């Protein structure tokens, strides 16, 4: 077990190295860079360009050096927690991301939990009542959730909450708390704002999750071991949860790895519409202005999350399914 864990963690290192190289290459491959953009913007606005200052900045950030050298400088920084410097904000990336990271993680987790809480009961109900009117109704609802774009839903929510309740639901907390240290008031404020983005971002996920639960469970429900369980005299509920449900869980556990990044990136448009203080809008802005250290470090965090997610799901899968635990990797 330990051996396996160590091996898996060791494999993560080359994976992340390759990822970082790809990210850096793509970011550096653009014909322009942040400083060119800056000069152009200033010229367009009729400002006087301070060439000496720009040159100084370029030198400061190593833009006079070849890309390979810059890459190693960046990766070396990442290794001891230095994520680089954001040109746009004139701050270390760490400080720019800071609070937003935690809020994003909070939002993402709440969304995943919301999705599961809603999707599992509905999916199980749909599967066990296949082709009934309630199944059709719930499936249609799920499809609607899947089909409506996030940002549109966000706009609708914004409009109606303003119309009916006179509320502004934007943001993840009352603006006055944003830079304030954590307090009870700040916490409750976050909670009272959180549920709307959770619902909006979670809707599409819930829709597809309902379909997945239903399909996976339906497949298991028709297997022979379900009949065996019934022939022992178990109640339908016990049968359902002990056997087919347990088997259908495999799919979701193996899916954890891909859920993490998709929820984080899925929230970006909504975050912009609702002006949430999450990392999504930050990433988009950084990519637009070619703020390469901010964007690059950010993408690296996402990849790390994905790799860890995959590891967690593999371990959970081995824990759940004795077949994987005891005979996995059998080769011909």
């Amino acid at each position, binding site marked *: *077990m330990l051996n396996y864990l160590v091996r898996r963690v060791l494999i993560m290192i080359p994976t992340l190295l390759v990822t970082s190289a790809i990210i850096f290459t793509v970011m550096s491959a653009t014909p322009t860079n942040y400083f060119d953009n800056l000069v152009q913007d200033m010229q367009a606005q009729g400002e006087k360009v301070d060439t000496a200052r720009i040159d100084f900045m370029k030198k400061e950030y190593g833009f006079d050096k070849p890309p390979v050298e810059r890459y190693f400088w960046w990766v070396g920084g990442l290794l001891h927690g230095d994520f680089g410097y954001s040109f746009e904000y004139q701050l270390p990336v760490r400080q720019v991301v800071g609070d937003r990271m935690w809020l994003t993680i909070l939002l993402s987790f709440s969304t995943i939990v919301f999705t599961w809480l809603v999707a599992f009961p509905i999916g199980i109900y749909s599967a066990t009542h296949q082709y009934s009117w309630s199944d059709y109704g719930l499936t249609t609802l799920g499809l609607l959730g899947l089909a409506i774009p996030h940002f549109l839903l966000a706009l609708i929510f914004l409009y109606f909450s303003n119309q009916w309740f006179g509320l502004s639901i934007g943001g993840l907390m009352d603006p006055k708390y944003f830079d304030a240290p954590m307090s009870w008031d700040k916490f409750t404020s976050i909670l009272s704002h959180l549920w709307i983005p959770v619902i909006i971002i979670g809707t599409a996920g819930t829709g597809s999750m309902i379909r997945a639960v239903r399909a996976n469970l339906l497949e298991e429900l028709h297997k022979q*071991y379900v009949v*065996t369980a019934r022939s*022992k005299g178990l109640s*339908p509920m016990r049968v359902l949860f002990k056997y087919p449900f347990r088997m259908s869980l495999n799919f979701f556990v193996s899916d954890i790895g891909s859920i993490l990044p998709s929820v984080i990136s899925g929230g970006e448009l909504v975050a912009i519409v609702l002006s949430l203080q999450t990392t999504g809008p930050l990433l988009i802005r950084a990519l637009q202005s070619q703020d390469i250290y901010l964007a690059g470090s950010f993408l690296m965090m996402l990849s790390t999350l994905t790799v860890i997610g995959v590891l967690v799901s593999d371990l959970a899968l081995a824990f759940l399914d004795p*077949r994987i635990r005891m005979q996995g990797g059998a080769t011909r």
Partner: protein
Amino acid sequence: MQGGAAEVVKGVSFRVPAGKTVALVGESGSGKTVISQTVMGLLPKNGIVLGGRIMFTDPKGPGAPVDLARLRRDGPEIRALRGGRMGMIFQEPMSSLSPVHTIGNQIREALVLHRKVSTEEMRDEVRHMLKLVGFKDPNRAYKMYPFELSGGLRQRAMLAMALICRPALLIADEPTTALDVTIQAQVLNLMRDLQAELGMAILLITHDLGVVANMADEVVVVYHGEITEAGTASDLFRRPQHPYLKALLKALPSFDMKAGERLVALRDSGADLHALVPLRKSKPAAQDAPLLSIRNLRKSFTIKGGGLFKGRRDSVVAVDDVSFDIRRGECLGLVGESGCGKTSLSKLMMRAMAPDRGSITFNDGGRDIDVLALKGEALRAFRPRLQMIFQDPVSSLSPRMTVMNIIREPLEIHGVGGAREQMDRVGDLMAAVGLDRRFLNRYPHSFSGGQRQRISIARTLAMNPDLIICDEPVSALDVSVQAQVLNLLKDLKRELGLTYLFISHNLAVVDYIADRIAVLAHGRIVEIAPREKLFSKPVHTYTKALMRAVPYPDLDRPLDLRLIAGGSASDPASWAPEFRDEGDPASLAPIDLGEGHFVLARPSVGRRELLAS
């Protein structure tokens, strides 16, 4: 089925006396499984009981019969009986058990549900039951998962599960169909012992008349949802009345058949071969030269053992130093239990896998072809010579292709003739396997299992092959259809001068079709002999055990269960000392017993002793 109800079981009445075995016999689709499901209240949701009663009298209960048909679906009354007073075992031992729960956990469940017992008592009871069904180490078995057990052991675990509450009635739905003959004999024996010990009634559902003859006190024959005949086993086997049962008994290959005697199929296929015969080349002069020679073929697989978290590697030898010849125009039968290397061998011959060493030589009318050395275009040109018929007629035909496209595909791949010519050829092939040309535009799902297997044969014939490997071609078919397909294969061989390698675990089938028979165990050929020789004078312990384990559909020849009751027959430790290799495979060699009869034994043992044993 959507849109309309179909009456599957019509006015069926029979009784299962306490402590007796009643066999329900019929081909697939006759409704026998539906009857069993109805008794247990396990019908699928779209199944409805329209009328009738199922009275269940529990010998240990209050006495008044309960009408099972009236109990609410999955209601508490039926649930109390299910698993408690009525147990059920199913055909597929792998899919019938949950793969992610331990054996102990799954057996225990019924006990916890139906009896108030302490945890300790419960464990003891489960261990006792595991011991009763023949697990050598119940403590270890308790913690094992189904995938760690062989098919026979899984079926035993299944039996333990059904019997843990000592039910009054056991319903066994094709309990041994998926098992090898020797294991089947053991499981049947076990069921009889347990029946005597627990005094329960058994409702045995099967299509195998050999099993029926050995197990049943009474027999009920079902055909298209109706009972055609019912009575005691001796009445039915000695004096069958209904034409259906008579036909069924005649369609069954048995060892008593005279050479050249033909099975009587329930429905004849009406094959028309005249269009194909001219296509065959005139047979070359060298009749005696073997068509295919296999020498010292060996294949091993590497298996990462010990689970995911340990890096240990094991090597399993699937085919071990196998040598044999197939003569032109003969049918060589290959017999062995699951896992003995039959399929690996056929894959090696088809060049679907590469052997570790050994040679395969194909005699092309005077010219020898080294099959294993063929590459590129030469291999492509050779492929049509060697074709294969598969076991499962459902999954071996693409459901998205019409029959025309399925049979025509090999012709297209090898660019045989123009479109017009190919289509005519496909028509001829359909006629050759006894199917109507008008069906060519249909898809496989509109054909029955036997018809699909005939389509599969037509596809094989499209390439006009010399040698056909038949991998268990009739084991998925009903008895009645089996006879038809076997007769077709025989006719094709005679008319077209084909050569077969016929792989099967059913000795009676091999006996009917093969000229010579090879017995394979643990990847080695332990005995090879002409058909009548092998059946009249088997020498190897394993061959003898295989023959003893075949249930005859004849009341006067019951299985000698005492002889089978010992350990597994395929375990070399149970073989006579002259056949054991004691860890050194090289210590055994094929010994010539004369007239083409070879047996794998120690060379120090003389011919005389072997023949006398």
